[in-house]
């Protein structure tokens, strides 16, 4: 087996403050060729305490060394479940860096920004086509922001009907952010326990005249398709509620099934997951929201619209929930997503979803029996194992740490909460059979190590630059800033 993990020459690096040497600098100014004039004395100070003084090479080495500590989808397999860490094609970066797009000021008048407005309009249309919704807003800045936009739209719809419903139903297989979103939108959360997938009976038993909406994730966080979704949507609608879908797992469905066709009323997209824009390290992301015809008036605004041959911002939106951002969303991410959609084409997107599902099922088939598979239903784009069958007193955390030694970013662990010791693997369509096999070989080897030599897991990682971190102390007593040399 090829083990990618290694302990090559990874250099230590101090903080910039610790490199500082008084008088060192990384700039040289040209000779003064105008009369010297003093700055107002009250604006000047003698020194800036603690300001690092460095040369150009100090700074370049500092950041270059730090960059070698990074692990991203460009360096290796990144099977972080629920996050869709697919490869981000470089053509998207080229498009986003075109000066006409990258250098455009957000306050540019629409008649001088027709190109980007056309792109936004076409992206909205493309996303609506993929998802089966009547209209899409691009404004929300990330997934949870999109959820909030969607739930506020639902709230506005109810208020327009003088409905004061106060509850939102959320199954335990929904994304972790959903309860927080519903609460932030002013609703009381009613959790529903599910047996893998949500049943009509479960929803029916919780459904009453005080339920504003059901929030589901489809496919859900167990990687399972909510196959009762159509009947569930009909039931919720019949009882006067709406259905929100967390679209974070849309990578399983593109070109195959459309949430809008299932009866979903509102869904957010994660452009940074499904549509291949970079994420991790804090984004930025983009969380567009699609809605049915009936909910269009409440979307955040202003959106982009086409009138004749001209693109402009909508003006007639009296019922809108209002702006969610000062400008128009994370436009650079929209450019990348549009570039991805156009370079893939409809057939390409469908193929991507098919391969994402195939890859997850390949991993499932190779690891079933080695790791416990708590839910036997057919997986879609991700597969969840548990540590139940692991020997040697080892747990999920130890497997994750040992995977680092083998050269892989660990999968999502201990989520979803409905699986004890969950190991949530989402390979995406990016990976070749070779990579999947190497990863599965590593997972199988680790299960063997747990049995024969558990210390290899319990003390992992051993090849990384730092060994196992004390997460407890880091959480309880975090050191968040430099406090001077000791």
């Amino acid at each position, binding site marked *: 087996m090829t083990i990618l993990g290694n302990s090559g020459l990874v250099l230590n690096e101090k903080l910039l403050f610790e490199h500082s040497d008084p008088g060192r600098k990384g700039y040289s100014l040209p000779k003064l060729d105008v009369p010297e004039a003093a700055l107002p004395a009250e604006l000047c100070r003698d020194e800036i305490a603690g300001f690092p003084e460095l040369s150009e090479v100090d700074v370049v080495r500092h950041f270059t060394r730090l960059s070698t500590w990074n692990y991203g989808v460009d360096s290796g397999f990144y099977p972080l479940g629920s996050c869709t860490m697919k490869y981000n094609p470089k053509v998207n970066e080229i498009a986003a860096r075109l000066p006409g797009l990258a250098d455009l000021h957000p306050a540019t008048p629409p008649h001088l920004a027709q190109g980007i407005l056309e792109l936004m309009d076409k992206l909205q249309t493309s996303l609506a086509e993929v998802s089966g919704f009547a209209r899409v807003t691009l404004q929300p800045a990330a997934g949870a922001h999109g959820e909030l936009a969607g739930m506020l739209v639902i709230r506005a719809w109810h208020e327009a009907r003088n409905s004061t419903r106060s509850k939102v139903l959320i199954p335990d297989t929904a994304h972790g952010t959903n309860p927080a979103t519903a609460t932030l939108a002013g609703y009381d959360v009613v959790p529903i326990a599910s047996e893998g997938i949500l049943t009509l009976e479960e929803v029916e038993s919780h459904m009453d005249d005080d339920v504003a909406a059901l929030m589901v994730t489809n496919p859900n966080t167990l990687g399972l398709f909510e196959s009762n979704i159509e009947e569930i949507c009909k039931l919720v609608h019949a009882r006067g509620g709406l259905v929100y879908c967390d679209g974070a797992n849309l990578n399983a469905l593109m070109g195959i099934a459309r949430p809008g066709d299932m009866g979903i009323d509102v869904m957010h997209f994660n452009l940074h997951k499904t549509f291949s824009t970079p994420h991790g390290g804090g984004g930025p992301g983009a969380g567009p929201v699609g809605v049915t015809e009936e909910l269009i008036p409440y979307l955040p605004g202003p959106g982009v619209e086409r009138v004749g041959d001209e693109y402009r911002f909508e003006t007639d939106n009296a019922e809108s929930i209002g702006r969610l951002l000062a400008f128009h969303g994370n436009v650079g991410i929209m450019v990348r997503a549009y570039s991805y959609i156009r370079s893939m084409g409809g057939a390409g997107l469908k193929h991507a979803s098919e391969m994402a599902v195939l890859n997850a099922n390949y991993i499932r088939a190779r690891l079933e029996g080695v790791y416990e598979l708590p839910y036997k239903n057919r997986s879609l784009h991700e597969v969840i194992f548990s540590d*139940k069958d692991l020997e040697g007193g080892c747990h999920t*955390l130890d497997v994750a740490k040992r995977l680092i030694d083998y050269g892989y970013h660990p999968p999502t*662990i*201990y*989520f979803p*909460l409905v699986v*004890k010791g969950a190991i949530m693997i989402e390979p995406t369509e990016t990976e070749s059979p070779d990579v999947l096999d190497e990863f599965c070989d590593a997972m199988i080897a680790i299960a063997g190590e747990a049995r024969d030599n558990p210390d290899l897991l319990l003390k992992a990682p051993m090849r990384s630059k730092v060994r196992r971190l004390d*997460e*407890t102390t880091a*959480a*309880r007593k975090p050191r968040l800033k430099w406090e001077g040399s000791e």
Partner: protein
Amino acid sequence: MEFPEELKYTEEHEWVMIEEDLAVVGITDFAQDALGDVVFVELPEVGTAVEAGKAFGVVESVKAVSDVYAPLTGTIEEVNDDLIDAPEIINTSPYEDGWMVKIRMAEASDADELMDAEAYQALIAEES
């Protein structure tokens, strides 16, 4: 793992010790072990009304954030402030120093609904 005979237990892995009309509440050894190192605890204010089955507090570990549910209906009489600065007490002493709140019970007979140590051990054997 220990499950003292004199305590009552809930399906949500809380333990309850009945002292006349007061119920002392914490999380079980099984719960602290499953959570891993506890890094943060959020407890209600004294005087807060709590309802059986509804969340009254939060425990955050390195793995997850979990609600803690009130085993009984009543009013918070006392909270264990030591847990705010030293939440790890829940890991080291779940049944004694790691108690979380004392609830003045609205209806003392509610305690009869709770599980005994034997029933709780049967429950966790099924779950794990």
